[in-house]
């Protein structure tokens, strides 16, 4: 079974981003970039399925600028067998990425596509569902457990209020939640080996996909600042403030 894992290069989750002073966006120049944390979990899950003898090949895909190659090498160092880069300098929105992934799926015919549930930059939480819709395939979003057997995926999902378990025939689309697994660190020998793994290059035009953005960002602002709070000396003062000043209890 072949598994396709889309990965996104995003601003590292530890970076406190700054809004540009002209309000056109977030300043990402000279900021540390990494693989989106949910995508690391997706790669890890695919590699575990390969180690369990269920998957035969894991293919990582990334869409974006040339530097996304580094993200693909990271995926290959974790254990993906090869990479595909769809290279473009255009801004890519989830609908466009889903179309690019559909084109890649049609070339590769994976039986399972594992994506992160959301990217921590645009926080959209759309691409997996959109791909499933375009491919007319079942979806299991926010997965915290995935079992593959007899041509079926049985997936436990994190929902408001608890968990639910779905079963669906393959091929299927799964998006990962945080608790699915603990991604491994890439070891130095594996990072070296990853440099030799094959990496194919396409452009959106090669795939016949129009990626022009549908949503126009008019401005990006800082969120309203909270006014500075006070430190209280003890519990009695805290309760007094909550009762008399804030009037919330």
């Amino acid at each position, binding site marked *: 079974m072949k598994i396709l894992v889309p990965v996104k290069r995003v601003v590292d989750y530890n970076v406190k*981003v700054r809004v540009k002073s002209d309000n056109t966006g977030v300043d990402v120049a000279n900021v540390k970039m990494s693989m989106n944390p949910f995508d690391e979990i997706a790669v890890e899950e695919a590699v575990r399925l390969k180690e369990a003898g269920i998957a035969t090949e894991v293919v990582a895909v990334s869409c974006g600028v040339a530097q996304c190659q580094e993200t693909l090498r990271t995926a290959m160092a974790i254990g993906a067998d090869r990479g595909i880069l769809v290279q473009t300098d255009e801004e890519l929105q989830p609908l466009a990425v889903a179309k690019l992934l559909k084109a890649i799926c049609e070339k590769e015919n994976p039986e399972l596509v594992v994506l992160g*549930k959301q990217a921590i930059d645009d*926080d959209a939480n759309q691409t997996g*569902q959109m791909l499933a819709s375009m491919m007319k395939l079942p979806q299991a979003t926010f997965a915290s457990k995935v079992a593959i057997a007899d041509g079926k995926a049985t997936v436990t999902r994190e929902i408001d209020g608890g968990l639910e378990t*779905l079963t669906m025939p393959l091929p299927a689309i799964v998006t990962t939640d945080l608790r699915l697994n603990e991604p491994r660190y890439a070891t130095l020998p594996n990072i070296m080996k990853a440099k030799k793994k094959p990496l194919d290059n396409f452009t959106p035009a090669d795939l016949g996909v129009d990626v022009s953005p549908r949503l126009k960002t008019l401005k990006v*602002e800082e969120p309203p600042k909270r006014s500075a709070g006070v430190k209280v000396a003890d519990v009695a003062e805290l309760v007094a403030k909550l009762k008399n000043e*804030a009037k919330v209890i």
Partner: protein
Amino acid sequence: MSILVIAEHDNAEVKASTLNAIAAAKAIGGDIDLLVAGSGCGAVAEAVARLDGVTRVLVADAAHYADQGAENVAELISSRASGYSHVLAPATTFGKNVLPRVAATLDVAQISDIIAVESADTFKRPIYAGNAIATVQSADAVKVITVRTTAFEAVGEGGSASVEAIDAAVDTGMSSLVGRELTVSERPELGAAGIIVSGGRGLGSGENYHQLLEPLADKLGAALGASRAAVDAGYVPNDYQVGQTGKIVAPQLYVAIGISGAIQHLAGMKDSKVIVAINKDEEAPIFQVADYGLVADLFEAVPALTGELG
């Protein structure tokens, strides 16, 4: 303009999140149709027909909507979407699961998790874990939108909409529900609570979490929440998690106990009206957003606080 709002429900009761989504639809303006897809969901349809602002309730009652599976519900919405200028659902796990599927079928962008309506085609939404607010404009014929529930005041009753049965779409038969394990709680629901008491790694164990926080939550009539660290350490189930990847909350009072205040946690609670932090580390980032901070050992401060509220 007419707007289709997707009702979230469990076939017996409408979820509070629907009331916030209707409020966002009212802010856009126009006729509001509510779609109730379910099985044996007549009571839900009657209840939502009384909600303020609703023009019409469309009910698709069929066995294959009983589980609210994304494939079937999205198929139904897509088949009904033409003629509407907007399709809205709450940005809960239900709405997030279903609506992008609808948007892709209609070949339109989806606008996730809006926090404000600027005009019929322009909306504000948070990006980068709430560290920036983007204003986006859509040129699509149908705007498919999920609504951050804490950003819109729930609508009340006072309407009398007509209820119409509509035909179900075909059963896609793509996936089936094996079972659900829902967390049973007597406390208010996290997303809708007026007061939240939330615990982090500083509590040290699940036992401490329950022993210290439950009496305090009971005194305040509060819901219980947690940081990711507390969930990962197994103190509480994951649906307690507040943050970028958990629930987004905005109660009147949020009490953060033994929580350092990582960016991802703040993303889930920094719109709370009043934030109280109890932490022994006075450098903890949580104090930068807390209205009232108490630098103290939580094992002494929390029982004292519970006692003080007596």
